[in-house]
């Protein structure tokens, strides 16, 4: 595991102190100028989210940290929570001041239960030091937070499903609009931010928007943590500027010669070798950090099957396209493996994938076809030449 240079060098509470010296508008201006975008994968502009919640008229507001890191191949939040929890809590406190929330919740995925003790201790220390509580560092700001445990559902990483779970119900995404910044936890304005986003926010308040902008690209400013795994010599967590190319990242991790790189986890895109010149950025190939390297020996159809099984397991089951569409896509993969999938049916499934991308109720169903579509498109030869069933026999079988 690599240490995270910027976070390791960050002076504890420097961001918080800077924020306490500003008013709400001041904090919002810094975040806006930095161009910080959500680091959980969706890349929503953080300042827009905080501004909407800040301007909502409500007596009670909530600041929620999404630590439900569930995208396969993502383990950077785990490292942040283990090694830099203070920075995350600092970011939450800064956000709370900006939006006017006095209560915070850290939604910790069930699989990270072993981190809870350490996090509770960190919270207790902060309370002792006056960094959480009714009057933080004598500034008059009152904010405290508690930890809420998830129970092993990937869908609870979706912010409205997360909120449903906080309220004690099945983790099923809500209809949007209204959005959580208007109507969130208990009907109150709620900001849900990723762990890494909050850590960067704390750094930005200390070091300034210009510092953050000095890395990355214009639409994707700043640096990002990537969790790299798979067929490479040096898997681990890397801190790199956004806008880095796939090829540059592969050199960094010792993954040259890869056949494909899955960027953005199972919900992301599969880049074949000819696309390694593309960049990891919101305007090109976005990711929450997950990078999985596939060497030449990997069977892409097996990869696809693994991803679809994952989505079928994790779908909440509410909406028709995702609940019933994902099993159809998997069934298509099984047919491809057996060499029993005709071009006509494959095209039906591609159309189904397109429908799922636009008609599913939430991001899970909207992105589960991504892997199917990109692998079927980019690795057509590898996928179609299965079990070499002769064309005549295929025609006889009617498929």
């Amino acid at each position: 595991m690599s240490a995270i240079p910027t976070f390791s060098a960050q002076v504890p509470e420097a961001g918080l102190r800077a924020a306490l010296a500003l008013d709400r508008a001041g904090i919002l201006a810094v975040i806006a100028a930095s161009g910080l975008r959500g680091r959980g994968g969706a890349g929503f502009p953080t300042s827009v989210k905080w501004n909407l919640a800040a301007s909502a008229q409500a007596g009670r507001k909530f600041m929620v940290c999404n630590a439900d890191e569930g995208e396969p191949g993502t383990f950077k939040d785990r490292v942040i929570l283990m090694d830099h929890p203070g920075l995350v809590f600092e970011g939450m406190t800064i956000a709370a001041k900006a939006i006017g929330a006095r209560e915070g919740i850290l939604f910790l995925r069930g699989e990270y239960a072993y981190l809870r003790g350490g996090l509770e201790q960190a919270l207790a220390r902060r309370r002792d030091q006056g960094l959480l509580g009714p009057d933080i560092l004598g500034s008059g700001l009152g904010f405290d937070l508690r930890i809420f445990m998830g129970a092993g559902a990937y869908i609870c990483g979706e912010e409205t499903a997360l909120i449903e779970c906080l309220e004690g119900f099945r983790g099923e995404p809500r209809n949007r609009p209204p959005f959580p910044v208007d109507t969130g936890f208990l009907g109150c304005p709620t900001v849900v931010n990723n762990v890494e986003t909050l850590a960067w926010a704390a750094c930005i308040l200390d070091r300034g928007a210009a510092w953050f902008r000095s890395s990355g690209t214009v639409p994707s400013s700043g640096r990002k943590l990537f969790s790299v795994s798979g067929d490479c010599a040096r898997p681990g967590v890397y801190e790199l500027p956004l806008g880095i190319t796939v090829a540059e990242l592969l050199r960094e991790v010792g993954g040259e010669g890869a056949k494909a790189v899955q960027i953005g986890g199972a919900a992301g895109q599969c880049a074949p070798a000819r696309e390694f010149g593309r960049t990891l950025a919101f305007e090109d190939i976005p990711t929450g950090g997950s990078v999985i390297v596939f060497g030449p020996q990997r069977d892409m159809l097996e990869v696809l099957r693994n991803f679809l099984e994952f989505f079928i397991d994790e779908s909440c089951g509410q909406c028709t396209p995702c609940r019933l569409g994902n099993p159809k896509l998997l069934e298509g993969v099984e047919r491809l493996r057996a060499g029993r999938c005709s071009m006509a049916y494959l095209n039906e499934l591609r159309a189904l994938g397109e429908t799922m991308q636009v008609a599913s109720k939430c991001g899970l169903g909207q992105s589960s076809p991504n892997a199917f579509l990109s692998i079927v498109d980019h690795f057509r030869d590898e996928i179609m030449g299965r079990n070499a069933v002769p064309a005549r026999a295929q025609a006889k079988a009617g498929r």
Partner: protein
Amino acid sequence: MTDPAPANPSRRAPASQQAQVLPAPANAAAIGGSVSLTINGTALKVPLGTTILEAARTAGIQIPTLCHHPDLCIAGVCRICCVEVEGQRTLQAACAYPVTAPIKVSTHTRKVRQARRHVLDLLLSEHFGECYACGRNLNCELQSLARDYGVDGFRFGHPERPRFPIDRSSYSVVRDRDKCILCRRCVRTCIDLQEVGTLEVLGRSDRSRIGTFLEKPLGGVVCINCGQCINRCPTGALRANDPTDEVWAAIQDPAKHVVIQTAPSPRAAIGECFGLPPGRALTLELNTALRLCGFDKVFDTNFAADLTIMEETTELLLRLREALAGRAAALPQFSSCSPGWVKYLEHFHPDYLPHLSTAKSPQQMFGAVIKTWYAHQHGLAPRDIVTVALMPCSAKKFECNRPEMDASGFKDVDYGLTTRELAKMISETGLDLVHLPKSDFDAPFGTATGSGVIFGATGGVMEAALRTLLELVTGEPVEDLYRHADITPVRGFEGIKHLELTLPRVGPVPALLAPLFTDWDWLKGATLKLAVAHGTANARRVMEDIQRGGPFSRCHFIEFMGCPGGCLGGGGQPIPTSPAIRQARADAIYQEDSSYPIRKSHENPDVQKLYREFLTEGPCGPLSHRLLHTRYTARGRYIE
């Protein structure tokens, strides 16, 4: 007196199953509370927050729906109502998307049409449609959508055989999981509309299924049999327990004397099963049809409703006498003719069972009288009589099977038949119900009053009881207090209604009640506090208020109906249901009431004759208690 405080919203259905609360946008004042949009190029102006679906309907633009229902909160799960909104990558569910800014909507672009077909193809890949053999053939929303949106093949396959056993454990509601399309209307009905909570989604992903607590058979869990879930199910996944084969067998058995009693709500609605718009009562045509089907006698349940009023009002007066004399009495008295409500109380508030009137429902009183007095009068052996009750109700199937409902020595009512089931029987005969000649009910139970008719609507039992109570106590016509004897304050679909009525005077005790009362002096100047609640969500509000010692605990009589709208919205009524349909049925019922020559239960000559010749000790006398009153079972919420 204000309505009881609403329950804590976060204890109710999850947000995904609750009505949406939309925040007012920051510029609401600036844009004046309404917003413009275009749908397929047509410009519209609608109130802020109107959904795309509602907006489209105002312009006569059709958008298909499946999980949406006018009585239920928004779900947004089926995705068939998805439309394109300019500028948005994903399609938006028209039923759930509130318009708060000018948008351009397209309802039939290539993407939308493809998405709709895919939704239908996917549903059909799981739905075991045996349409020919299904009770919802030609009245199924999935069928209609498949037809309307051009389904011409099973792109993703279609099940050839069922995979799941059918749950027939309940007397009232049958569950067929193979037909379920997971629209969740039943869950929203049971959790959100009725606040009973028998059904919920279990599991996730493609293992999602609608189920009960621990997946126990429906007959063994806390279910009140109200059948509201059946009324809102778009397919045949939920249906009532259908006894038409047994009823036909009884009719065809020459040794059996088969009588049917018909209730007002089915009569006001059965036309809907034959293509008529709601609100046209076919009472007298139905009598002809029933005789032609082979029923030996056709009786009017309203007769028994009048009997119920006599018994229940007398019981109320007895309790009032105790209470006003400072002695303990089980007040408020709760009406007891809704078997869904009765089972609700038995499960959720068993310690309040003494408050229930001990009077049976009209259906059950009728059965007891038929298999005793009527049998004797006509020289029939009770074991050869089969009593069938035509009811708007699914819970009555449970009610007639209660072990204690055997006052006659036999099962008082043999079969509860729903409106839909009778429509099926009539259609099997080929009779043209709508154009049959009219005919009257049979003696000796052929006379009814308007009071009996209005039992079908929420507030009807209360109004009927008041018409009788006011006249018996004051000795003056009720028209002196309420024009045409229409007690309008208790009418209408408001969830909880209340009324305070001060008795203007007292008169002599009528002969019928002489065995029990010597005078009405103790009622001089009394103010009666009354309430009416329909749907178990409202019943729950009232019960919680009573438990807290609130205003409703000081009521004297409360009418409770298990179903929204009252019996006219019962679980056995034609499908679909909606607020407009129920309003039309209510209008038909109140219109029938005003057309009756006799409008008060105690003036029913057949009822008077029954007390003269049979129940000679009068209402609430020993024989009445034995035949026409019942007891209840504390069931609680725990199941085996």
